[in-house]
């Protein structure tokens, strides 16, 4: 069972449905006991960084996430959920994150680019990982975001996309994984990535 953390940041059903496609049973929950029992935890999310952190605090979920990550349980953050894994974000201020991966979240600033970074972009593999098994540099995934991660150690980046800068698409530091794009909306490539995630768990 995979716990999909429900902290009032948009619709989580699409993530649930996509997990079903690869034979993973998702449970949409904010119950800490279920987080503790889960095989892995998924932290989805859309919207603003500060609101998302405030909601995690409001539902008293941070300690449970910390404890499970410390135990070695796999945590997958998707979109905003990935950004929360870092130390801090500069989205409309300066806000602390969960600090599982060293680094910061900053806004796209290059002149002449459209913001948000919206649409299908290809993943460029930065380092080997089971997460990108059967994924090539010709594979496209669906992004929509205005801020991106700048990890302290670029070796935490498994794959990135080019959009004025190298935009981390998949990050991994031990048992903590993030995907900036939406695997649940990325057609066959997204499915392959979720399959890879499933294999890592087994």
């Amino acid at each position, binding site marked *: 069972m995979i716990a999909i953390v429900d902290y009032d940041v948009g619709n989580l059903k699409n993530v649930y449905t996509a997990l079903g496609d690869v034979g993973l049973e998702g449970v949409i929950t904010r119950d800490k006991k279920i987080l503790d029992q889960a095989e892995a935890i998924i932290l989805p999310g859309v919207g603003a960084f500060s609101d998302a952190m405030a909601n995690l605090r409001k539902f008293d979920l941070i300690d449970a996430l910390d404890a499970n990550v410390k135990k070695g349980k796999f945590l997958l953050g998707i979109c905003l959920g990935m950004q929360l894994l870092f130390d801090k974000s500069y989205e409309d201020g300066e806000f602390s994150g969960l600090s599982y991966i060293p680094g910061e979240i900053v806004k796209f600033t290059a002149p002449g680019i*459209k913001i948000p970074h919206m649409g299908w972009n290809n993943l460029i593999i930065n380092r080997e990982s089971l997460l990108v098994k059967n994924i090539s540099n010709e594979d496209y995934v669906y992004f929509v975001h*205005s801020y991106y991660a700048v990890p302290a150690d670029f070796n935490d980046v498994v794959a990135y996309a080019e959009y004025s800068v190298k935009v981390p698409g998949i990050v991994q530091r031990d048992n903590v994984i993030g995907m900036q794009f939406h695997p649940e909306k990325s*057609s066959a490539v997204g499915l392959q990535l979720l399959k890879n995630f499933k294999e890592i768990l087994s």
Partner: protein
Amino acid sequence: MLTKRIIPCLDVDHGRVVKGKKFQNIQDVADPVELGRYYSEQGADELVFYDITATYEDRDIFINIVEKVAEAIRIPFTIGGGISKVEDFRKVLMAGADKVSVNSSAVKNPQLIREAALKFGSQCVVLSIDAKRNHQGSWDVYVKGGRENTGIDAIAWAQRGQSLGAGEICINSIDTDGVKKGYDLELNKKLSELLTIPIIASGGAGKMQDFADVLKVGADAALAASVFHYKEILISDLKNYLHDQQIPVRRV
């Protein structure tokens, strides 16, 4: 590299797709889920479902369709039609839609854009504008399905929409819509230069070159309905064509 998007638009009335024929390889061409899946397999980058159901009571049928589409299709989709308050956004987003498009209701109440963007994020707010060229060489915003001229300057409205928090602008040119002689290149070029959010061009696609032309002047995505529904253009062929024109596209 970020690719340009090709977006088929499906008009839905009482839960059935209105246009569309000549599809031999799918069973029910009026079923939004079947047709959506077909387009997705062809390589559509996103889908737009536009609810043209006239009566408010029948809106629940449409919500049911949104749920079914979300279960069946793994690409992003936008819902438009009949969205006039934040609660309407919530309903379709919770049913599984990724974005919501507003048109006349935002002209009537521009704060709807801001409220929805604050509540659900800019990424899901698409401002759709029906624009028609006037005699002064600019474009006016029309509402009520293109029947009523508001006298508002379309470019100024698009800029205001961006500052209110829209994540994307869909610009539908009334002059070119249904004529199949190409998109309004001048309007799309102007908007692409002035705005920092993505632009979806709509209205006028007749042949593959029309798509290439509007994407080359700066549009980030091109939307079309009848050329896809009547199978005059296959999305997979279109993507190959655009690729040959050095336009970045995602091919499946």
